[in-house]
């Protein structure tokens, strides 16, 4: 029995072991590359064990001590989490290298500890993989806390040096602190809710049938509010844009994908084991949160000038979309639709944030340092103004970005379309007409800013190409710069795709191929999801 239990949680054991090994390794041999290698090896080993388990596991899954239920669904999400973590570690490596570039070669003399990034990343993966296997409020909560606590330092993560502007460091500190406050609040609310559920039902396991007592329902509502806070659904979304904007971009990618998808997967399990859709109040709560997120998330994104804030609001809306499928009573189809949408969302969001991160990295040597926000938006690689006309400066990168944006908008030929198609099917099957209308309205709103961004990328520059007037903007007063058409300024800042390392290009290529490949021929992915 013990052997079986242990074998069922090998992925978790390997991840946990990887964290310990990495800590010991860093204690003895400081080294950035070594840390990345250990991380990737751990992730590969975890993937192997997941794939092995997928073959051997019985269909109904394996319960480990009542706390965890390892089944095909949880293994699928483990694989998705690990994939996300691997991509983020590659992007993070690029991010850290770009900022450490100017430092002395001997790492133990520097004040920066890039290795900690990977330890925290593995810890988050461990939490996410535990979360998707959770079968008990206690394990659910523990896993959620593991993720949140590892995110606090990761969001505030910074390395010192000339290449790491003080501005970014301050912003990421702010981001970590804001997340700490909201997350701690969510924890408190959630714990209170769990306590009420326990008082009402006498059990914390997920297997109990729904009770109709007020206490039980109130407990669940509080618990769902905590989840909504973590998922940043409207009206619990206020922390999202600031946290996303300030965090190091790879971490933003991580919190937008892994932090959300794992929780949604766990929620999917929770909703269907407890049959929460039987309770009208819960149904109403989830539907309201979803509709509000779709509409308000997209509305707020409309006028964002900062790319990361824009993607933050867009992720709020996308999380709202998922809930259309989550409420479906038909469990098999709900699983299928939610999984399909989450895969599409995770791949697309990863792709978009990777591009933003890599663009910022490549622009880093030419971005002025200092603690003050950049006045000249066209030189701030996180501003829309910077992306104006990018297609003509960095065609390949822009095409990747356009694919990611089209996928976010749910246009055919991309994976995002099939995700949205699944949601439409789910909404119609569940006869959620109001949610469907919100979905359509939200998508139409979403189109506006995705398209606006694509159009910014396409802005043609009729003026002559890139004279090197890089020094001139500082001499002029800022007001004049603001008044000038952005096209003229933009010519001074050429993108430097050559400064993106091969690993970055490979990551982008992989993600784009996945987005387009599954967008044209999604059958392999669908078959895989059906088999869950």
């Amino acid at each position, binding site marked *: 029995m013990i052997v079986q239990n242990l074998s069922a949680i090998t992925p978790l054991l390997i991840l946990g072991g990887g964290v310990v090994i990495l800590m010991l390794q860093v204690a003895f041999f400081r080294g950035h590359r070594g840390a990345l290698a250990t991380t990737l090896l751990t992730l590969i080993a975890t993937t192997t064990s997941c794939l092995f388990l997928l073959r051997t596991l019985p269909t109904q899954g394996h319960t480990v001590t009542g706390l965890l239920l390892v089944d095909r669904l949880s293994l699928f999400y483990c694989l998705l989490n690990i994939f996300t973590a691997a991509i983020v570690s590659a992007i993070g490596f690029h991010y850290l290298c770009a900022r450490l570039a100017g430092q002395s070669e001997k790492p133990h003399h520097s004040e920066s500890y890039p290795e900690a990034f990977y330890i925290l990343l593995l810890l988050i993966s461990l939490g996410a993989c535990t979360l998707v296997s959770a079968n008990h409020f206690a394990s659910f909560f523990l896993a959620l806390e593991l993720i949140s606590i590892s995110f606090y330092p990761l969001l505030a993560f910074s390395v010192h040096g000339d290449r790491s502007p003080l501005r970014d460091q301050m912003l990421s500190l702010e981001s970590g602190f804001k997340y700490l406050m909201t997350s701690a609040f969510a924890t408190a609310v959630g714990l209170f809710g769990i306590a009420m559920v326990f008082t009402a039902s006498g059990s914390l396991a997920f297997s109990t049938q729904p009770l109709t007592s007020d206490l039980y329902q109130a407990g669940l509502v509080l618990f769902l509010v905590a989840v909504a806070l973590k998922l940043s659904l409207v009206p619990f979304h206020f922390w999202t844009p600031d946290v996303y904007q300030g965090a190091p971009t790879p971490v933003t990618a991580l919190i937008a994908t892994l932090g959300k998808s794992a929780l949604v997967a766990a929620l999917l399990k929770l909703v269907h084991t407890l049959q929460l859709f039987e309770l009208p109040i819960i149904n109403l709560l989830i539907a309201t949160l979803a509709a509000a997120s779709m509409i308000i998330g997209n509305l707020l994104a409309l006028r964002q000038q900062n790319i990361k804030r824009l993607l933050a609001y867009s992720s709020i809306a996308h999380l709202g979309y998922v809930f259309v499928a989550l409420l479906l009573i038909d469990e098999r189809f709900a699983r299928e639709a939610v999984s399909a949408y989450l895969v599409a969302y995770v791949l697309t969001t990863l792709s978009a944030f990777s591009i933003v991160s890599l663009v910022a990295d490549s622009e880093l040597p030419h971005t002025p340092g200092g603690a003050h926000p950049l006045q000249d938006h066209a030189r701030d690689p996180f501003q829309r103004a910077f992306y104006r006309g990018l297609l003509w400066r960095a065609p390949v990168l822009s095409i990747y970005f356009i694919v990611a944006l*089209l996928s976010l908008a749910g*246009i*055919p*030929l991309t994976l995002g*379309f099939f995700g949205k*198609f699944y949601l*439409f*099917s789910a*909404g*119609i*099957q569940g006869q959620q007409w109001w949610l*469907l209308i919100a979905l*359509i309205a939200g*998508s*139409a709103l979403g*189109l*506006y800013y995705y*398209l*606006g961004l694509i*159009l910014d990328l*396409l802005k*043609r520059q009729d003026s002559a190409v890139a004279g090197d007037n890089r020094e001139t903007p500082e001499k002029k007063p800022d007001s004049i710069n603001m008044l000038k058409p952005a096209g003229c300024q933009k010519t001074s800042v050429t993108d430097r795709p050559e400064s993106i390392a091969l690993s970055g290009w490979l990551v982008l290529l992989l993600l784009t191929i996945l987005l387009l490949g599954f967008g044209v*021929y*999604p*059958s392999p992915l*669908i*078959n895989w999801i*059906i088999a869950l």
Partner: protein
Amino acid sequence: MTLLLILLLLLAAAVLCCPLEKVHPGSSRALAIFSLLMTTVLLFGYLWAPRVFTVPATLADLWWDQLNWAWIPRFGIRFHLGIDGLGFLMLALTLGMGLFGLWITPGQIRQRVGLFHCCYLLTIAGVVGVFTALDLFLFFFFWEVMLIPMFLLIAIWGYEDRTRAAIKFFIFTQASSLLMLAAIVALAYLSYLQNGEITFSLQHLAQARLPLHTQYWLMFGFFIAFAVKLPAVPLHPWLPDAHTQAPTAASILLAAVLLKTGAYGLLRFTLPLFPEACSAFAPLALMIGVASIVYGAMAAYAQQDIKRLVAYSSVSHMGFVLIGVFSGNSTATLGAITLMIAHGLSSAALFGMVGKLQQRFHSRNIAEMSGLWATLPRLSAVALVFVMAAIGLPGLGNFVAEFLVLVGSFPSYPWLTTAAVSGVILAAMYGLRLLQRVFFGLPHSNQVTPDMQDLSRRELAVFSCAGLLLLWIGLYPQPLLSQAKEWVEVIHNRTIENPANYTPRRDGDSRLKGSEAGY
């Protein structure tokens, strides 16, 4: 297989355009023209292919050629292409006007020529997919795919206000097509509940028997998407901007081909899928049609920008198409199909003509031009011919088409048809105003510059091709009508169903039964 070959040829040429242009400037245009010529030849091969002409008993017998592969088995979605008489006409129009658009605008695109031709061919490939798809999901897929390159054509190579026009165009079409997607999925789901088999095939879905109010809602989803494309009056605001701001070749593609996808969708999908709902909706649809005719014509009369004038005239003409499609009469439907072809030819030529004017005067303002006949006789003659076609001069294609529409729909809807006739008079008003202001009268002194070139022989030849086709349709439309007849019969007789379980569904609707003797 030929259909797939046409699609692949267009796609391959589109992909090759960008690298080729880098190697040898100008070659992408040649490649685009070559690929369009090749596909036209392939398409016309169908006319000589041996075919048994029978009255089709089922929908499956109707197609000249089919291609049916599994695509996404999970949802029963198939890669199902097919061509029949109607599809052939539409494809011929698409490829022909694609060629026309390129031939008439040499050297107008100076920047990113390779990418331009790539987008141009991709749009055409998407439209070819739309006109051949027989699986509703596949149809939707192509419907969306043709949008993106068109959007790029407007957004990158358009005129001064291109960004706003492109966004407007995309959002109008995309938002409405999301409604259509919801309707498609709902239809498939309802048919799944009835038959226990999930499918998106047109043939199978047309057999689903739905209660009238469900049909009504679903039809509404389809209708809005197609009415935006058509465009019908309350949903038209994207059109004047998109047409005006697009580069000439893209305007031609938009007017001649993309507008027709809306009418085609109504004919191919809405009518056979929701027959009862359509006949119940018909009076309202006809009212929308009349409103489009009158509003489009009046708005056209008020324009100062020639391109906007032509664009609004499209709204007006598409109102006739809407009437023909929904009047429930074979003659009127045939008239609508003829008008789709004839309007494709005449509006493409008019946009080509405006492009030529813009090239010479860098303006499209009516007030800035006068008396061009003296300086540019050939261009003015071309304008005269096509404006006359557009206002429905007997002997040219549009007259036959509009006449058929009016004759066909008069017995059922006498008052609405009478109102629609006013469109012909209004068309004469805006058409003649355009001719009189721009081409007749005394020339402005500042307009006449010695280097003003008239049309070259080659350009004149291209315009004459379109003119001769219009003349042919106007004098002898029978070959065209007989190609379209099969599908019109399918719509109106419901032979789409298996004859074994055919039950007359329209007993109560005597109007529709009594009107088969049109042609």
